């Protein structure tokens, strides 16, 4: 079922200078690229698509990724050509887009218990960076020179990288024995240098940080800010709001919680919400209602950090998120959380692997014990499902971090459990040989990294 590269189907070399209105010294001589006909193009990408697992293929329980169904109608809403305007439009001529931005800001603020929201960050990690830069600006504005961000060991890698990108030193907080933040360790870790604690709640094994009020007090007492990583917000919808827990700043992963499509890795969007005190530091421009009846306007926050995206972020994603939230409403959002948690707990009950820690919410980290979690995962592919995230977080040995989301029904979860159990119980030989019912067999990752060939040009002569 191999599909040739487009370049292997035929390329064409164009003499650029022949028809160029530019002088030769400003142009390249020639350009060589594939030149398929439209039917060939259609077949190429149709075949490629058929070699790709997706939510619409079946269960996709990647822990911490919240792979849920992307309602089709949100695509139609986002395809509205009236919304397809240039970001440099004047305020008065862009009232529609400003209104939708404002509406989305408002509902996100409500859902997170925040006071102000920016839609500019184009992804979750960009949201993290925005939030940390806001915190940094806040501290600097108040004359505080703080150099550290505290992050639990179990946190997403992005938290660490974000803190470093913002110029902070990372203080890694070891997990407590119960998988949660250890208050004593936290007390020890925070101090005058602490700019912020970044926390995911429920954390990356699905545990709610029960001591969140104490955590907030410890951080705040040290003069730090509390950052909420929104990756797992799906578990809390309608049941708890970061703002109510003492968080000062947070990001939302709308491609997780609000079901915008993941697009093979993006685009997502990472709006950032903050409490009033931090609002003056948000990226510019923000959108607000103008004086009575005159619509919406952009404005620059007094102490803005500037910008985190060249324009207004991933606009099409914002539209889809708004449509999804509007479709579910209060009860639907709360039910999504309930069913996500129900599904995780049911699935954990049905699999033969041990699940340390609990009670977990929307995801759990099973352990493959003395099996290699990556091998078990490859074998699961043969049983017609996508496996969970493997070997992370490290606090669970041979972890299989599983998040079925609310969209799976009982029979689908049973199928998933069966795939888990069959793979887990299979022979070493079978695991080594897996997968063998997929478009490609087990792929040599080490070879790929050792001898990087990153373009068809690099394959020339092969």
């Amino acid at each position, binding site marked *: 079922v191999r599909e040739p590269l487009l370049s292997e189907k035929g390329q064409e070399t164009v003499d650029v200078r022949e028809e*160029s209105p530019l002088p030769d010294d400003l142009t390249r001589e020639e350009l060589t690229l594939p030149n398929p006909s439209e039917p060939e193009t259609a077949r190429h990408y149709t075949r490629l698509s058929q070699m790709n697992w997706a939510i619409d293929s079946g269960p996709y329980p990647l822990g911490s990724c919240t792979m849920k169904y992307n309602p089709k109608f949100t695509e139609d809403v986002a395809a509205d050509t009236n919304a397809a305007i240039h970001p440099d439009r004047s305020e008065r001529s862009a009232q529609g887009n400003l209104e939708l931005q404002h509406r989305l800001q408002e509902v996100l603020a409500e859902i997170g218990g925040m006071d102000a929201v920016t839609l500019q960050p184009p992804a979750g990690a960009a949201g993290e960076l925005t939030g940390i830069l806001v915190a940094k600006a806040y501290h600097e504005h108040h004359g505080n020179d703080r150099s550290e961000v505290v992050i639990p060991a179990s946190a997403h890698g992005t938290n660490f990288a974000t803190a470093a990108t913002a110029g902070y030193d990372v203080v890694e907080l070891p997990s407590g024995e119960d998988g949660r933040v250890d208050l004593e360790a936290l007390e020890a870790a925070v101090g005058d240098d602490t700019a912020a604690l970044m926390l995911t709640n429920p954390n990356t094994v699905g545990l709610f940080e029960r001591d969140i009020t104490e955590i907030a007090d410890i951080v705040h007492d040290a003069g730090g800010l509390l950052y909420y990583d929104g990756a797992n917000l799906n578990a809390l919808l309608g049941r708890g709001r970061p703002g109510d827990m003492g968080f000062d700043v947070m990001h939302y992963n709308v491609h997780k919680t609000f079901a915008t499509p993941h697009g093979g890795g993006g685009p997502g969007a990472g709006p950032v919400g903050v409490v009033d005190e931090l609002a003056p530091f948000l990226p510019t421009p923000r959108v607000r209602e103008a004086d009575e009846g005159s619509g919406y306007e952009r404005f620059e926050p007094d102490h803005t950090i500037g910008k985190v995206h060249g324009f207004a972020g991933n606009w099409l994603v914002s539209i889809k998120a708004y449509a999804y939230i509007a479709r579910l409403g*209060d009860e639907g959002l709360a039910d999504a959380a309930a069913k996500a948690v129900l599904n995780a707990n049911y699935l954990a009950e049905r699999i033969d692997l041990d699940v340390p820690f609990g009670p977990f919410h929307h995801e759990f980290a099973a352990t493959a014990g003395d099996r290699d979690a990556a091998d078990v995962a490859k074998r699961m592919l043969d049983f017609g499902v996508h496996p969970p995230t493997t070997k992370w977080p490290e606090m669970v040995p041979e972890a299989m971090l599983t998040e079925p989301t609310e969209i799976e029904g009982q029979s689908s979860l049973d199928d998933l459990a069966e795939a888990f159990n069959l793979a887990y119980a299979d022979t070493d030989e079978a695991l080594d040989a897996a997968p063998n019912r997929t478009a490609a067999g087990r792929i040599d990752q080490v070879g790929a990294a050792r001898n990087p060939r990153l373009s068809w040009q690099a394959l020339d002569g092969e």
Partner: protein
Amino acid sequence: MSRANGTPYAPHTDDETAAMLAEIGVDDEEALFDIPEAVSFDGDFGIDARTERGIRDECARIFARNDDLTEFLGRGHYGHYVPSVVDHLADRAEFLTSYTQYQPEVSQGFLQALFEYQSMLVELTGLDVANCSMYDAATALGEAATLADRVRSTSGDTVLVPEQLREGKRAVLENYCDGADLAVETYPMADGTADVDALADRAGDDVAMVYAESPTVRGCIEERLAAIGDLADETDALFVLGSDVVALSVLESPAAVGADVVVGEAGSLGLPTAYGMGLGIFACSDEFLRQVPGRLVGASEDANGDRAYTLTLQTREQHIRKERATSNICTNQAWVALRAAIHAATLGPDGLVDLANDSVREAEALASRIDELSGAAAPVHDRHHFREFAVRVDQPAEAIAADLEGEGFAVHAIDDHLLQVCVTDLNAGETDGLVAAFEEVL
């Protein structure tokens, strides 16, 4: 069924929910939540659930509140006609609803598409390596600065950028530089392109990176890129070139002028005008392979010895290397890259070159028509232009822009007496109208 008040996207009937709760051994869903009373939420958001149709109507009404203007806007965000086949193929659910290719054996389709996208950028830039997307041109530039910090930090901490640079792009760059303790400084421009002599004067050991754009934010094609490259090289600064995927199809190859890194915008292919949503290019030479930010797709083999694709060199990335990663980027713009690749395939090299050549010709033609009007002079800079150009007007630019808006046209007001006009295949048929409107309002 009894899903009426729940999410319409969960399949559970009441019976099924009850059976599942029984299997778990709890009485109701509430019992599954371990949230202390003090921080639990029992209010409501005040969001009424609407029907699918209701939301489509509501959003259509909202978007209809945007004025129906013919846009001659550019400055970093460009719309070209996107062939229908791009939507139809990119919208296939296997692409759109998939995620990062953590299990390459069931993700060969997207991996190959991204590999092909990378290859297209390798051809367009002449560099060895292109990643499979950054958020947009501005963040790609920011990432280039952090790369400079990592690979050129011994040289200094100054990032030199052109005086004429989109403000928003510079603001993003500043945020990346802030964390890396880099300082952004501008170098002057002469008639729309880099003042290379002034740049030579400024060059020195404290410079970690020199950034130039071609086309510039005002649409000027930079004429002395090789000289800039030489300057950067002499002082061991990273030479980062900003460009655009369409322009790259005809402009001299970045590799040929000594660029170490190419950043810029590729969303001008595949994406319609989208309120600034973009697709960041990041390409560089092999030398920096282990320092590249973002995801890379590589070719490998599967157990049957067949060629297969996989994400590779992941030890650069945040989920493995954490605070020592080359970037914090995780979710990227993969689907937009797919769209750009499909658009490029649909055009073929000749179609792409035609589009680029038209971008030069149309800009030139429109500028000269505007130049004939009294009260306006265009192009302001005596350079070759790509898609767009500045216009000097006698009256205040803001007022003229507002008047043009009244006539149904949007242009940029970029300075007291400077407008900027961008022409692509989308609005090239409307230039008569724009010229007439100019005549009306000047």
